[in-house]
């Protein structure tokens, strides 16, 4: 259960209770050896007897009616075992899926909505045969007008993408916090209202108004999406997939096939990165359908070009208006955020909502008003991406903070600190803030980068500086972000007679190191060496429900469950040991699988002895299990309520050098501080932080998916540039702040994406500081800088 702030002192668990020294140290990762030897198994490495290769025929049109699909020639090709088309789905009750709105068909039914929309699929003996068969499928289209972007989608007379009203099957409780629309290109809208913004603007001495945009970008996880489906009986599906949501995916597959959930077994091997792209059903429905039709196991692994056509990050257009007093108090802020969710909703309604209520930033403002819109267009579907809707708004409010500071002649750091929310303040949603080390993070990065106070003289000198040669500048940014709330996790834990333990969890090992961190938590509470703890990979036949490996929620939620399950076992061990040692359980400690009396280490029994005492010999297991559900919810009209179980907090600082002749930006220093709550594995936290920074660096300076009337122009790694070793900043710094959270295990919160939010504005502000060019559209390309320097806008 989530606890109210007043219960803080009693919750969580403190380290002094256990004192094994495992939590808080950089324990080596448990998956290292298989990863450096090439033995690590990913879904694309798996093979089953009689397995077929699946390939997908995709639409070349951004928007068209499907008039005819004829697969007869493809089906007749030797080596082809099944072709899946809409004809196979005609008599099926459930052919649409999606985590919020069931708007995405397994294959196109009556329309295609973007370039890459699946139209048919082939299962064949070999991949080259399947590809040949795709060419033999005849599809006749009638092209429809293309809805290119958010504004076009909402313009009067715009072509409607989704003509049928899809059934929003509200599984996730937080969807009650927004308004889903029907038969409109507006998929959903959410609101935040506090005070009266008009009144706030009237009181303001300065009102600033800007529009910032971000393009669509790719997750670019190096492992493409893959799935292997096997119907071992007509009513039992086993599917291996690189999904981030085994439990939710199982439920959706069960719904599609009309099966009890227990008849769908979803197994997730190691996953080669995802960053949000592997959340919710992606490849699973089409692979399962194809395998069912073929009557044989089918594996589909996407090509890189197909990954580009599967999921991406929401492009955004965000208008922000801020009223401020002459002494730098933020009085009112109004935001309209338009997120482009592409052809299908995916998790866009939540992304949009989550970006919306933090769009005013982590600042005390009496009057706020936000409308956040999730809009369909004829582009690649957009979904969860590291940062989850918040980079789009922080890019905007943090750049504007620097402009406001300059207009007032104030230091940007001082302006931020003056307005920054602190412990005990009420957030825009009305909830009380706790465990929010924003000030600490911001001050840490400012100190680290050598922030120089901007006073009148600084601004005057900056304005007069000639815009030639290479110019240096520094920039700051800070942010606050929620986690998926409410949400549910469960874990079970087993301690065996030899002092080994096994954690059963549906948390996905996607590279973040969850198996190592969960092992640390279990080892600490059970008092066994961390090498003795094994953490499962997800297998829904055995591992209990978990809502998602995303939203940086695994350490907080699953870690909480492991800690609580461990306590249950620990109590049993201590009770048995207390009898043996003739001591009170409270006086006992467990370290290295030995229970001893505190202060008298000679009075001890091993965990194995405890099992002997219980079972007569050294055998058997002790069990513990726990579920954790966070609570919350917002009013859909005002956004008031409780947004989150914990807040992600981060601040960043950048130093850049802008070459005024070429427009090139060299990042000299990039520093990110995040609030871990409690650092369970310092190296792991630092690596997650570095990863967030480098992903965001790419999106800030080089990455953009370009479309021309719905046609993608750079959908492969040949045309889409990613940060390599050569794009590393001159110095990459990472700082961990600890502001413990009462519900987190040992106070820990999530760390996986916080810093991805603050990099673009920190760099944007540094660029402005260097050369006076305010970039409002990402990425910050040399061309945009040169246009700015030449006053071309």
């Amino acid at each position, binding site marked *: 259960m989530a606890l109210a702030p007043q219960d803080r002192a009693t919750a969580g668990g403190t380290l002094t209770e256990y004192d094994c020294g495992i939590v808080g140290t950089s324990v*080596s*990762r448990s*998956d*290292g*050896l*298989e*990863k*450096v*030897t*090439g*033995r*690590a*198994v*990913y879904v*694309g*490495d798996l093979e089953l007897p009689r397995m077929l290769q699946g390939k997908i025929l995709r639409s070349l049109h951004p928007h068209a009616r499907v008039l005819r699909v004829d697969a007869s020639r493809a089906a007749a090709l030797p080596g082809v075992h099944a072709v899946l088309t809409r004809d196979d789905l005609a008599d099926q009750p459930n052919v649409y899926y999606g985590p919020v709105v069931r708007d995405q068909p397994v294959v196109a039914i009556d329309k295609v909505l973007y370039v890459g929309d699946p139209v048919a699929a082939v299962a064949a003996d070999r991949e*080259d045969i399947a590809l040949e068969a795709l060419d033999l499928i005849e599809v006749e289209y009638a092209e429809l007008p293309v809805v290119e972007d958010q504004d076009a989608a909402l313009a009067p007379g715009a072509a409607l993408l989704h003509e049928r009203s899809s059934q929003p099957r509200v599984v996730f409780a937080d969807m009650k916090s927004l308004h889903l629309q029907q038969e409109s290109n507006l998929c959903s809208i959410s609101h935040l209202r506090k005070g009266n913004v008009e009144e706030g603007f009237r009181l303001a001495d300065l009102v600033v108004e800007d529009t910032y945009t971000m393009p669509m970008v790719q*997750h*670019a*996880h*190096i*492992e*493409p999406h893959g799935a292997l489906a096997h119907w071992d009986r007509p009513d039992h599906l086993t599917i291996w997939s690189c999904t981030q949501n085994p439990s939710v995916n199982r439920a959706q597959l069960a719904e599609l096939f009309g099966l009890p959930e227990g008849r769908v077994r979803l197994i997730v091997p*190691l*996953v*080669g*990165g995802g*960053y949000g792209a592997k959340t919710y059903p992606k490849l699973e429905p089409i692979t399962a359908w194809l395998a069912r039709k073929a009557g044989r196991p089918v594996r589909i*692994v996407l*090509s*890189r070009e197909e990954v580009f056509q599967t999921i991406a990050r929401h492009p955004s257009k965000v208008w922000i208006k801020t009223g401020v007093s002459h002494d730098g108090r933020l009085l009112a802020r109004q935001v309209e955020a338009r997120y482009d969710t592409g052809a299908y909703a995916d998790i866009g309604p939540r992304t949009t909502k989550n970006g919306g209520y933090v769009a005013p930033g982590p600042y005390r403002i009496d009057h706020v008003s936000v409308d956040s819109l999730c809009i369909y267009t004829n582009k690649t579907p957009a979904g969860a991406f590291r940062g989850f809707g918040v980079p789009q708004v922080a890019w905007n409010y943090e750049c504007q903070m620097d402009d406001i500071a300059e207009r007032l002649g104030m230091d940007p750091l001082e302006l931020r600190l003056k307005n920054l929310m602190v412990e005990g303040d009420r957030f825009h949603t009305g909830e009380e803030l706790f465990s929010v080390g924003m000030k600490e993070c911001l001050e840490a990065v400012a100190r680290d980068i050598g922030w120089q106070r901007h006073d009148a003289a600084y601004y005057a000198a900056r304005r007069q500086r000639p815009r030639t040669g290479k110019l240096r500048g520094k920039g700051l940014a800070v942010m606050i972000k929620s986690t998926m709330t409410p949400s549910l996790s469960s874990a079970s834990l087993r301690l065996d007679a030899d002092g080994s333990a096994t954690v059963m969890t549906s948390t996905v090992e*996607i*590279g*973040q*190191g969850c198996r190592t961190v969960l092992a640390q938590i279990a080892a600490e509470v059970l008092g066994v060496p961390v090498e003795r703890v094994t953490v499962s990979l997800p297998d829904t036949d055995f591992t209990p429900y978990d809502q998602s490996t995303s939203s940086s929620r695994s350490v907080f939620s699953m870690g909480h469950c492991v800690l609580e399950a461990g306590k249950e076992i620990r109590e049993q061990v201590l009770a048995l040991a207390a009898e043996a040692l003739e001591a009170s359980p409270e006086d006992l400690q467990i370290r290295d699988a030995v229970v001893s009396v505190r202060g008298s280490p000679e009075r001890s029994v091993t965990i194995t002895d405890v099992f002997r005492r219980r079972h007569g010999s050294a055998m058997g297991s002790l069990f513990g299990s726990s579920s954790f559900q966070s609570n919350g919810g917002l009013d859909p009209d005002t956004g008031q309520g409780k947004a989150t179980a914990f807040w992600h907090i981060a601040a960043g600082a950048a130093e850049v050098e802008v070459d005024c002749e070429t427009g090139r930006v060299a990042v000299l220093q990039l520093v990110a501080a995040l609030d871990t709550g409690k650092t369970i594995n310092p*190296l792991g936290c630092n*690596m997650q932080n*570095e*990863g*967030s*920074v*480098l*992903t965001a660096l790419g999106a800030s300076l080089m990455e953009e998916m370009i479309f021309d009337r719905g046609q993608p122009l750079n959908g*492969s*790694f*040949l045309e889409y540039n*990613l*940060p*390599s*070793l*050569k794009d*590393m900043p001159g110095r*990459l710094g990472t700082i961990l702040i600890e502001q413990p959270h009462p519900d987190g295990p040992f106070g820990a919160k999530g760390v996986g994406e916080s810093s991805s939010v603050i990099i673009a504005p920190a760099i944007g502000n540094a660029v402005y500081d260097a050369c006076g060019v305010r970039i409002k559209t990402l990425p910050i390309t040399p061309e945009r800088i040169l246009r700015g320097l030449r006053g071309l806008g």
Partner: protein
Amino acid sequence: MGTIGFTVNGRATSAEIRPNETLLELLRDGLQLKGAKEGCSVGVCGSCTVLVDGRPVSSCLMLATNAEGKEVVTIEGLADGERLHPVQQAFLDATAFQCGFCTAGLIMGTVGLLHENADPSEEEVKDYLSGNICRCGTYLEVLQAVKAAAATLRGPGGA
């Protein structure tokens, strides 16, 4: 179909191949060496890197038929039994991986680099390995691992 003869991880091997089959397909599907991964199929991401006659090659771009008579080393061929190659050991010690999908390619690239240049500068490392993308952003640890591996391979006498 045709047959090629080549050496894979020290063993003389012959394999049936299709004319358009890539070396990566042959290694993964034909020879069941799954350590090299396909990330982009256009030779940009580096996760399919193997050594061909000692030099790192994007096996997704090389036709299997061009491996005739050559010596191919994959990640599976680096360790000596259970004893890791110094580059593998360095990547393990530095935790120079997260999701691990690009790791085999990065290790093979590093082996190739250190074969050509026993004591590379940081700039040389960045330049040489710029064709190995790690989207988890593990570059700091990779630099550390390459440096450590270089020192080990040079041995106590190497400066």
